[in-house]
């Protein structure tokens, strides 16, 4: 019991403190790829700390939904952080749910963020909310079908056990169904975390924003919470990609040496994935908004093919 609580705290700290670093690393690598020196990888920590000390300006049009949303966002991603296998194969809250719970927890976050976008009564917020829920709704079938393909082969949908069973499989990465599911999940990750080619996180043009448009009204500590929750969501999606599809290095025991090794393995996998995302983001242009459903339909087709491959082989 005490051990589990300890693992939970360590996992929360790894995710909570590591998420801004991951985002910072992504920005640095992207900058280097276009010939700039770029910000330091720990810049997001400085941004968050500064925001905590700033005044909060709240719109007179908005209601308690606007003020509660940042805390709801943080709550959902922190609970999600305890369900995703980060460095321990059996995360603390694994008994509480599985991928379906994860998907719907993220939808809870999107629901409240969209409401907060509508709450301020500005056209930007409404537009961001409308686009964000459309992308989230269209991405959901892909996540569930892709993870179901994995669950079918592993004979369980509990994420910890899926990771454990695949960890013993040497030729996992060569399995075509596995790679198709990975490709589908990768595209969905880009859509859900608001990265190019679906959404440009650094854009200043409100008409091109999807996620950013909803947070235009937030300031001070609310903005800090929203940004932090966004970083954790990105971290969790990357961790899912790394650990579900390449489950090596996860430890089943809780000894400090094993956990440290697992953390190093996680760091390595995340570094490779971040590099891939950075290369992709600097190479492609943002898609027209009404082309995004086509991209998501394509990812669904990949996930469906992966599932069919598993079913036909069985």
């Amino acid at each position: 019991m005490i051990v589990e609580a300890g693992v939970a705290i360590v996992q929360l700290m790894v995710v909570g403190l590591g998420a801004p670093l991951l985002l910072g690393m992504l920005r640095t690598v992207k900058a280097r790829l276009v010939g700039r020196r770029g910000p330091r990888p720990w810049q997001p920590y400085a941004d968050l700390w500064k925001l905590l000390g700033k005044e909060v300006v709240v719109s007179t049009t908005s209601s308690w939904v606007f003020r509660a949303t940042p805390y709801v966002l943080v709550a959902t991603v922190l609970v999600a952080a305890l369900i995703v296998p980060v460095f321990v194969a059996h995360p603390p809250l694994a008994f509480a749910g599985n991928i379906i719970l994860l998907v719907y927890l993220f939808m809870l976050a999107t629901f409240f963020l969209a409401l907060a976008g509508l709450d301020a009564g500005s056209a930007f917020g409404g537009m961001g909310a409308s686009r964000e829920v459309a992308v989230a709704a269209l991405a959901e079938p892909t996540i569930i079908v892709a993870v179901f393909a994995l669950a079918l082969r592993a004979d369980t949908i509990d994420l910890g056990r899926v990771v454990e069973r695949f960890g013993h499989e040497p030729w996992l990465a060569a399995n075509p169904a596995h790679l198709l599911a990975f490709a589908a999940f990768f595209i969905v990750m880009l859509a859900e975390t608001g990265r190019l080619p679906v959404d440009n996180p650094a854009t200043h043009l409100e008409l091109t924003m999807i996620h950013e448009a909803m947070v235009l009204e937030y300031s001070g500590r609310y903005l800090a919470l929203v940004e932090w929750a966004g970083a954790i969501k990105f971290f969790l999606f990357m961790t899912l990609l790394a650990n579900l599809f390449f489950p090596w290095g996860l430890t089943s025991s809780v000894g400090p040496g094993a956990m440290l090794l697992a953390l190093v393995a996680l760091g390595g996998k995340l570094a490779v994935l971040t590099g891939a995302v950075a290369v992709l983001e600097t190479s492609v242009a943002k898609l027209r908004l009404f082309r995004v459903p086509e991209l998501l339909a394509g990812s669904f087709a990949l996930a469906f093919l992966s599932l069919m491959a598993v079913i036909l082989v069985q």
Partner: protein
Amino acid sequence: MNGLVYGLAAFVGIVATALGCYGMVGGTGAVRLAWLVPLGGLDLTLDSLGAFFLALIGFAAVPTSIYAMAAPPDESKARFTFLGFVLSMCLVPLAANTMTFVIAWELMSITSYFLVLQDRESRSSVYAGWVYAVMTHAGLACLLAGMLLLGAWTGSPRFEDWRAAAPALASGARSGAFILLALGFAGKAGVIPLHVWLPLAHPAAPSHVSALMSGVMIKLGVYGLARVSLDWLGIGPAWWGLTILIAGAASSVIGVLYALVDHDLKRLLAFHSIENVGIILLGLGSSVVFQAAGQPTLALLGLTAALYHTVNHAAFKALLFLGAGAVVHATGTRNMEAMGGLIKRMPWTAACFLVGSAAIAALPPLNGFVSEWLTFVALFQNRHLSSIGLNLVFVLGIASLALTGGLAMACFVKAFGITFLALPRSDAAASAVEAPVATRLAMVMLAAACVGLGLGPTVIVPALGAVGASVLERAAPAMVGDWLTLEVAGGYASLSALAIAIALGAAFIVPMAALRLVRAPHRTRDYETWGCGRIVQTARMEYTATAFASPFKRVFDFFYRTTTRLDIEFHPQSRFFVQRIEYENHTSSIFHDWLYRPALELLRAGARAAGGLQSGSANLYLAYILAALLLMLVLT
């Protein structure tokens, strides 16, 4: 007078709930009056499945009656009809033979018809009632045909005797009976494509009636489907379950698609009822397929998921309809484009509606999430089926359930956000007042029920499993677990709603407290919304419901067949200045265009042709009589 009659209705609800719970834990009972009704007499029996639906009716009747006590007089004048409606609905799950069932069913339909027709002056109301009456009686015709045929083939009008005699019937006969009965019940449940009456009747009826119709009456269609596919006809072939599954998948997706583009608050909720019936049928269909494949444990899982979603939907749909009723009464309009800012003027209604919206969007830790989770797990069990075709259909079911979940969330962001948040879009919305105490009480009761149903699956699922096991013989319970965690399908998946709720609560409070400790400056300043420095900030700057739905209109254009109308009035002296712009983006239902209109045209053509027989000449009629007489003499 109002209070007395509605109080009586609430009392009937409490009795029904008590009786239902008694039946679910194993109690039985029977009432038989052979002389009251022809062809078998009045026969009421309490069994487990019927008891569940009886408890459901009672559970929904209590808050709606309380709401009706405080409803405005023009909405609540049909009080005796309401009482009759509740009573006749209570009789349906208890009925044990054909005539009792049909009489209770028809009473339910007629009372609800009169309740739908509360506003006799408006054309749309009359049209809604007309379509409702036609569809429900077409369904009744199918039901009567199926039940009478079954009675003739098995030699008895009693359902118990069907259960015993069904395996001996020819498979063609069984399938024929299944099709007829399923059509009849599906029409009442609002399954695509027999759903056309739902979006017309539910908005036209007063809100407490809509809540009951949507929450409970269409569930009686589900009750019938469950009886037909699992109980009365024994274990059928796999295509029965597949049909239900496909109908469920289609209903869930198409229902929510039409809800997304609707801006009439109550019609949007009606389409969501279609969607949720689809989800229930996904669970039920999977159950029937597993039963046919010889997997009773998995069939029990599917049936439990379906029953759980039934009770959850009754809870949150009733809550949403009552909330919508309060809003419609406060603002005088059902059109979402004229609402806004109601969260500040009607805080209780807004909070309850938010709980209902989160529940129907299947967000943890509320009840909608738990039953959708169970449905997912039930569908995931297709790994035990060997046929590739079956697997494919199940995968499509999973994909459509996932899509539905996302789209429902999007739709309720629109419904709650446009109605309650930001600035009021009309004077009526700006001057709305909070609902009366009785209304608030009813809504709070249902909101508490949503939360309770969401946090208590470890208690509810075994109870529902017992109900399902009474219908499916030789089924072992598919779920175990302790008070905290629910484990299903032999360790395939586990869920702990309580743990999630506690974790969410802690994760919500701890950062709030931590922030207060870390950074002392807690300055907050109120200022206007950021509008790029624009001088004027009015409700016209806000996003509209039409705009919110436009990404979906583009993506799912096939279902909407949108037609756009743009009228621009220029200044008479210069085309550079615009005086007025009117934009209309109209969607039409493909079912109207492709199914009902051709069918009605065909019917009219046939009626015109048959009208040739009525020439008006008395001699011709005498000749008809002579011919019929000769024919009868020859044949007998």
